[in-house]
């Protein structure tokens, strides 16, 4: 079940999607965190960030919209208050981060480089819920290239870059971040959406729009992962609506080297364990000795 995702070896290919697993400790009562391939922490910025006004979430058919707005404790409080828990884990810790400016991206990357407990980082250039940073860098190949280059220069750890689906052609961005020095790509982040309360006739989110996640987006995510796998040489991590083992297996078949589980953590806190066990079972049933016999085995 072990996989390599651009310089980082995982004992299995299942990890949480950033923002759905807090800083790990929130879910410690419900599952053995050391059984999952890695922990991916909530998006971190240089300074603490308060996030968006409420309401911040709305449920839709087989999905949820969120406009949290990257609320987080900031790098220094992360080190002081969140790292002590993460330090005790035996599974690798991947820190997701973002900046408001190119300089901030570089600064956070440099700070994270100094922390030995951080095994790898995931660069967020794809959050749809903030005006500065986030998606601004993820929708333009030139800006994405620049952001990844700045981070690459300041970072001494494996670099995963998370892409947004809110673009016309995701492969253009994927190639740009590969060229700029990304070690792997995770895709997709949430799809921008909207919901309206028909009684009040107002948007159900204070931010008006939010990021759609959950099973509703899985076919879109699968298609994009398939496209990105064809477009780049670096490993791709599939994200988007994975709830059951068979969902993860689909992503592996189209070529994802690993997967991230997001909204499903809210539905069932132990869903990643079920998915790991389900993949193992599938390998046995199919007579496969190595997960790499599954990865990229799509017949066209």
């Amino acid at each position, binding site marked *: 079940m072990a996989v390599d995702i651009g310089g980082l070896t995982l004992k299995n290919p299942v990890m949480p999607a950033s923002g759905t697993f*807090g800083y790990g400790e929130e*879910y410690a009562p*419900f599952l053995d965190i050391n059984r999952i391939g890695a922990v991916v922490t909530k998006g971190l910025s240089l300074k603490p960030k308060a996030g968006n006004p409420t*309401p911040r979430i709305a449920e839709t058919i087989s999905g949820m919209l969120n406009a*949290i707005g990257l609320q987080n404790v900031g790098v220094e409080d992360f080190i002081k208050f969140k790292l002590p828990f993460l330090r005790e884990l035996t599974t690798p810790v991947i820190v997701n981060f973002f900046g408001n400016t190119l300089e901030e991206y570089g600064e956070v990357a440099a700070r994270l480089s100094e922390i030995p407990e951080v095994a790898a980082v995931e660069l967020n250039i794809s959050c749809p819920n903030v005006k500065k940073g986030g998606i601004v860098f993820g929708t333009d190949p030139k800006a994405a290239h620049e952001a990844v280059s700045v981070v690459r220069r300041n970072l001494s750890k494996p670099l995963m870059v998370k892409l947004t689906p809110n673009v016309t052609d995701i492969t253009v961005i994927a190639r740009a971040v590969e060229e700029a020095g990304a070690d792997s790509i995770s895709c997709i982040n949430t799809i921008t959406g909207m919901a309206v309360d028909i009684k009040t006739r107002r948007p159900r989110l204070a931010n008006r729009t939010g990021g759609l996640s959950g099973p509703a987006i899985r076919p879109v995510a699968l298609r994009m992962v398939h496209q990105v796998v064809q477009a780049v040489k670096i490993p791709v991590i599939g994200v988007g609506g994975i709830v059951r083992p068979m969902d993860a297996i689909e992503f592996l078949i189209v070529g994802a080297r690993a997967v991230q589980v997001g909204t499903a953590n809210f539905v069932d806190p132990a869903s990643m364990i079920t998915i790991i066990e389900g993949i193992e079972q599938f390998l046995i049933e199919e007579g496969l000795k190595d997960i790499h016999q599954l990865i990229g085995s799509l017949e066209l």
Partner: protein
Amino acid sequence: MKNYKTIILSNQEISPGYYRMRLLTPGFSESARPGQFLMMRVQQSLPPLLRRPFGIFRTGFLPADCDGMPPKEYTEILYKVVGRGTNIMADLHRGDKVEVLGPLGRGFDVGDPGEEKILVGGGIGLVPLYMLAESLSARSKVRLLMGGRNRDDILAVTEFERLGVETYVSTDDGSLGEEGLVTQVLERKLDKFPSSSVYACGPMPMLDAVYRICHRRQVPLQVSLEALMACGVGACLGCVVKGAGHAEDNPRYLCTCKQGPVFRAEQLDWSRLGEEPGYCEGCKS
């Protein structure tokens, strides 16, 4: 705190549109505190996608069966049918399987023994007050002020009376108890018992009115808030509420599921809290 894969012991309509569900939850009552809540996965298939939060009404033990089976530990929730999730729940029966995450959140601070307490419940907001009344009534004089739009909204009052709690009922249309708002009753009670602590749960406009009354009189107040929640454990930050001192350029959000759902009134920014939309599906959804 754990995820229980459990079964329903009973699920009955107790008033038009209101249900009482009893769940088998071994080990739950040892850890559940007054004011805590649980997140329920109402069915295995989708939709609905997310769990629904419900205030814990009470926990207890069913006596041992005559065939020698040990006592069964249960948890009860009361809920109002308002949306997709609670509509599905209303159709569930004894023996049906559900998943329950809990007990979650911070509950009420029971305060000083001996001091008189006033509990204010609005409709389904009564739910988290029962365990609190159980805990308080052993040590203090407790009064429950219960309000609703009409008699159908008044729930479980006799159960509070069995605890020795003095209960006062008011309805908007006067169909049960006195006609008028529960907050009018609160003003009168505070005139008579000025030193009492107040504990409240109900719709935001009611809580807002209770806050203004208590603030004016300098009476300590704890409120249990409702919020839309996705995770229930403080990971998603979807259920935040504005904390005291919140400003556009200095935002301070508190997480309802983890830092609440019970807050001391002074922890919150009340300037616009009364305008927050009502989310009530169970007590907390």
